[in-house]
């Protein structure tokens, strides 16, 4: 069979006829315009949910973890599921920012700010759970190595302690990374905003940034080093989260495949969440020129790939369970697929493995509505993946006498739903007060930013023609 290869030029990152100034306005005007009514409604709703979260937490602390559906075999329920789920979602931002940056994927500039913000807020939501799920939250500080009159130290053998360090490091580094990216854009806002208070606030946030190229020089270096640091970090965080399970000896948890499998799952769910939010925002804020269908397609391809990786991991779990001939391993996987939690297992499979396969079709992966639906389906599926891993393994482990079923209570649900309140509260504040696209970066990625695209004589903008090489039709 002979195939015809065709060179497809990279589509333009920014659609429409934009120059620096118009892009600048397009993005930052959102922050400078008077607050739209819709925003207030959304913010109010988010606040309502946030109060649900705070109320649930207050009741939890007052009454004890017993208000959740936890029981003797199933000591970890929704709290840990939600933690892993949110952390997973929180992987997309840094992944987009750091890994795609290192791979010189310039299209990331349209979404990286946005995705990083999502990361920060998702990790905040995630971080709540390990803290509140403990029995005695008032002594939670014992997990930190603080000198004390008991002369006791935390246990560095515990995956939970690794979690403490991993998640807090991840949050801190993501925050720094995000902030570093924001500084030039804060300067832009500082220079555009009219109000005195706004000038002061953005002025402080911009730290006196003035676009000096001597600064840019260090700045780019720092950005690259951060990207280089964040890449192993982002991989390590979900690896360590997966250690919570993989280091244990519970069948179904005690699996070496967990680290890559969790990371793939995290990228999968993170991209889906970015898509969900992005599709809404580009519509509302009219950013279709920046967050283009090409972006959506690229992200869908990643979803397709990671979804298939996750599916492969599901298969491998079964294979290894069979291949190991460990009866407890074999049993747990059979129980997952056919036992009392089979419903959850098959929701997981259909959402995570089957639904992304539609993206083999170019038409579907460029269809915004369809993508939106799939992105939500994927996140439901990923929640169930964590549910299946956490609950089924605990529910039916070694001693059949101790098997027990887990059912959530209303408080499990309310706490989970409440975290969306936290997430969207922060996300809406972000949309309102910070540029949701990295302005400086997207300017740098425009063809106008390239000095070679200017006429050497007149200094006028004259973009180079892209040469499309002749396809080699004779090759076999």
């Amino acid at each position, binding site marked *: 069979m002979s195939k015809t290869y065709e060179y497809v030029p990279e589509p333009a990152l920014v659609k429409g006829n934009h120059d620096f100034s118009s892009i600048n306005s397009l993005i930052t005007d959102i922050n400078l315009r008077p607050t739209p009514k819709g925003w207030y409604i959304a913010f109010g709703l988010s606040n309502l949910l946030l109060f649900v979260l705070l109320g649930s937490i207050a009741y939890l602390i007052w009454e004890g973890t017993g208000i959740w559906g936890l029981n003797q075999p199933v000591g970890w329920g929704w709290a840990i599921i939600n933690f892993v789920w949110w952390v997973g979602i929180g992987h997309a931002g840094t992944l987009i920012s750091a890994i795609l940056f290192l791979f010189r994927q310039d299209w990331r500039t349209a979404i990286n700010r946005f995705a990083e913000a999502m990361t920060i807020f998702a990790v905040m939501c995630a971080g709540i759970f390990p803290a509140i799920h403990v*029995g*005695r939250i008032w002594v939670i500080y014992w997990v930190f190595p603080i000198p004390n009159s008991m002369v006791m130290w935390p246990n560095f053998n515990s995956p939970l302690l690794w979690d403490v360090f991993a998640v807090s490091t991840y949050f801190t580094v993501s925050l720094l990374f995000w902030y570093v990216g924001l500084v030039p854009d804060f300067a832009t806002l500082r220079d555009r905003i009219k109000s005195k208070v706004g000038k002061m606030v953005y002025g402080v946030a911009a730290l006196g940034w003035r676009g000096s190229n001597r600064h840019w020089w260090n700045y780019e270096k720092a950005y690259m080093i951060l990207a280089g640091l964040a890449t192993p970090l982002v991989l390590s965080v979900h690896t360590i989260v997966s250690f919570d399970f993989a280091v244990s000896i519970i069948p179904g948890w005690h699996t070496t495949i967990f680290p890559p499998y969790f990371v793939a799952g995290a990228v999968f769910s993170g991209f889906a969440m970015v898509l969900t939010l992005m599709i809404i925002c580009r519509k509302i804020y009219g950013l279709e020129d920046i967050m283009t269908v090409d972006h959506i397609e690229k992200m869908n391809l990643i979803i397709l790939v990671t979804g298939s990786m996750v599916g492969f991991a599901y298969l491998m779990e079964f294979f290894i369970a069979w291949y190991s001939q460990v009866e407890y391993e074999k049993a747990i996987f059979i129980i997952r697929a056919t036992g009392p939690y089979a419903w959850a297992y098959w929701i997981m499979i259909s959402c995570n493995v089957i639904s992304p396969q539609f993206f083999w079709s170019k038409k579907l992966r460029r269809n915004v509505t369809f993508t939106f639906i799939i992105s939500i389906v994927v996140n439901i599926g990923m929640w169930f993946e964590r549910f299946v891993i956490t609950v089924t393994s605990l529910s039916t482990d070694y001693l059949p006498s101790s098997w027990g079923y887990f059912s959530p209570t209303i408080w499990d649900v309310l706490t989970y739903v409440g975290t969306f309140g936290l997430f969207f509260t922060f996300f809406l504040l972000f949309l309102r007060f910070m540029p949701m696209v990295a302005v400086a970066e997207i300017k740098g990625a425009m063809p106008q930013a390239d000095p070679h695209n200017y006429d050497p004589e007149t200094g006028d903008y004259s973009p180079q023609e892209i040469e499309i090489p002749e396809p080699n039709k004779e090759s076999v």
Partner: protein
Amino acid sequence: MSDQKTNDTTYWKSLNELAKNKEYQKYAEREFPEDASELTDQVSRRSFLRVMGASIALAGFASCRKPMQKILPYSRQPEEQVLGVPNFYATSMPFQDTVAGLLIENSEGRPSKVEGNEQHPSTRGKTSIYHQAAILGMYDPDRSRNPQLAGEQVSYSDFAEFAASHFAETDRNILFISDASSSPTRHRLKTDIQSRFPNSQWVTHEPFSDDNRVEGTNLAFGQRLRTVNHFDEANIVVSFDDDFMTPSGHKNSVEAAWQFSMARNVNAVEDTMSRLYSIENSYSITGSMADHRLRLKSSEIEAMIFALAARLSQDLNGLDAYTDYSNSMSGHEMVETLAGELIANRSNTILTAGTGYSPAVHATISALNSALGNIGTTVTLHNLPFRDNVDNTTAFAEAVSQAQAGAFDTVVILGTNPVFTAAADLQFADAISNVETKIHLSEYVDETSRACDWHVNQAHFMEAWGDGYAYTGQRSIIQPQIAPLFEGVSDIELLHTILTGESGSGYDLVQNTWRNVLSGNFEREWERVLHDGIDDNSDGFSNASVSIQSGFASQIIPMLETSITDRIEITIKPDPTLFDGRYANNGWLQELPDPMTKITWDNVALMSPSTARSLGLPAERDFASDEVPMVRIDTGDGAIEIAAWVQPGHADDSITLYAGYGRNTIGRVADGVGVNIYPLRTTGAPYYRTADISAVDRMYEIACTQDHNSIEGRDMVRAATLDEYRENPNFSTYESVHGYEVPGIDAAERESDDYLAKGGPISLFDEQYGPDYQPQWGMAIDLNTCFGCGVCTIACQAENNIPVVGKREVSRRRIMHWIRTDRYYEGDEDNPGVYHQPVPCMHCELAPCEQVCPVAATVHSEDGMNQMTYNRCIGTRYCANNCPFKVRRFNFFNYSDEYLTTGDDPEIIQMAMNPEVTIRFRGVMEKCSYCVQRVNRAKIETRKATGSRKPEDGTVKTACQQACPANAISFGDLTDRNSVVSQHKMNERNYVMLEEINVRPRTSYLAKLRNPNPELS
């Protein structure tokens, strides 16, 4: 405990004085306040406040101080009291017409734990669940606190005043209804009463007694005798529905279980085992120990006994009555098997039938035992000195109908609760409403109290003087351990008041009786009996010489009619944990899972899977739901609706119901729990009868502690027959079970016979072990003798201050028991094999729980224990998740606080707590500690006495070990090669659960053996 061996001199006098001492009564607020303050989570609570309200923290550093605590020393120090060192006093616990010898641990002058008395044959240092739970029963704040007249609170002197005038008329027609009692003092007073009140009548009422067995001996031998089975002497035991190892099935279950386990104890291939045949209708724990078990409806069991007698009459003398008899069970395979076995093992067998069966059945059993030559060897018969020579059941029924007819002007009811428990057709409440004056003595204001004018609050046996005979006849004194908490009086004190019109001292009453019993220096002898807890001059009841009475045949033949029908039968038994309902307000017993069904806080209708199907009910319970369907049971006399429960191995077309539930306004624990089944019970058919059963379209929530019944073919429990064991003594090793070795096990380690050196599979780490200078504790549990009674659970609960969490929390699978008994079914659902496996913390050498705790709250001690440090725990529950044995328990709520601050006077129930063990607060993990408080005390005492760090073998007993009637649990130092536990660990049958995951449990199991009849296999 070491103290128990030496049995410190019993300072009964000072104890008695102490009991009267005002100071003593106030001790709860007094002596060492840490006992009480231990019960609160002050530290965490203060921290909590600091978190919750910044204002408190800001109020100044003064708020960081602990609240002021008071110390109240004695004003006059009692001599024997060393603070913090518990004393042990002997006493006995009455149960119907027996007593069991106990030792009570006294902590700073209050009883806090019950142990068996090693010198007393009824317990031999062991206990049953009723004994263990008695301590909570005494500290029950719901007990009646004062006498009542028509529901109004009065004082006992009011009653005495009334009694003085009322009983001055000695010609009154008085009916005395009492519970069964073996007390010589009560017997003496009863005789006095009968002579003082010539028109009085005295009957005994016990809803579940062995009266029919006594009537059986009367039928067979013409004497009312007590049957004592010596299970340790027999080769073959045939139990017809006799659950003799359960305290609800047999008054002397502790001794019976001990004897049975002695006869089944196998330490080497040469040892022998007795063989147990069990023919029963529901699955009992005795049945679960059977080598052959046959399930039959109760009516068929009865028929089979007769058929067996008929079959044996061909070969044996003395069974002429049965020669021509036959019924539908004649020729049954089992009858033939049993006939063969019994004849082959003549005079070495025991036949026994459940107490519920008719006198004819028991007469047949007696005749069989007699014909087989068992009487005098494995079965002995005894005269009861305190028993009237009447049939209690009929006497009671007759007395009630006389009362109905207005024959009595006064009724005095002692202890028993006939309004609740008497057969429905007697209409007892109605009957006594025709009596003018009704007096009731009881611990609770119960159903009968409310039907009476006078209620007198009864003292608990630990609060009052008394006496009694053990099942086999040893005389014992009941010595109070504390002054009556609610100023209750004992039965003898009440009788004294009736006789004299004055309040009497139980102490004097008992002494007066014993003056005639003890020979020699009375004061010295009396002290000796008190100290020992037993009068060792009383060897037991004398043996009665018996022979089948003439005319037996003519009497028995008309009684041999059987009533087998196609209809569904109901069989009514006392509840294994609540008995007839008397323990219904005891939280420990309510929450103790039923040994077979593992149900707590409820009774159910037990039925076989196929019966369930025939009623249109599912034969499998939904794993995801606690809801079970209900059935309606209608006998024509009464009807109830009750949850249906499928019991694999139950006889088809038969339903078993447990009595004792469905009580109201008794107390916070008992009220509204379960269904009262007494309305289904009649004089004519107290044990079984046919009934109409129909499914009801309603579901009911059941709190069951084990949701999965099958062992799923896993190797948690390993078993073999005796022959298989002899052929391959190593049958229980991993290699024998799986056909290959534990992966990665090192050859050198495999060869080693030193248990401690014997590590496990190769490891990537240099492992840490406990240092040599410390003892290394370990436990072995013999599954061959464990019969799943659950006393270990209650003993542990009592010792370790484990809270009761209630039905709702149990149904959410949050029960707190540190040691549970797993029960697995194996084989087909119709007649599966049953295995019991007690599971405490395994104290793994390489404990998976430890490495995952982020704050090092659970780590290893130098003496090899897996420590749980409550005050370090932050409650991530990771350790519990990572425990492959799921033995860790989490305080999801502030269970202890709820449990210990119930009611208006929480200090009462707090007094039942062990001062040595921290009360756990909300949000911390807990689990079996190998009774570290006992271990540490022994280590400190040994070190003070000898300077050695290693207590001698036997000095430390864990609570579960000490309570176990079957001696199934051994515990000790593994560095001592001669310790019992080391010996057990070196036994071939020793194995650990989940060996292949290399956690190296310190708790191991000895595999189970069965001894089936080779001809049947």
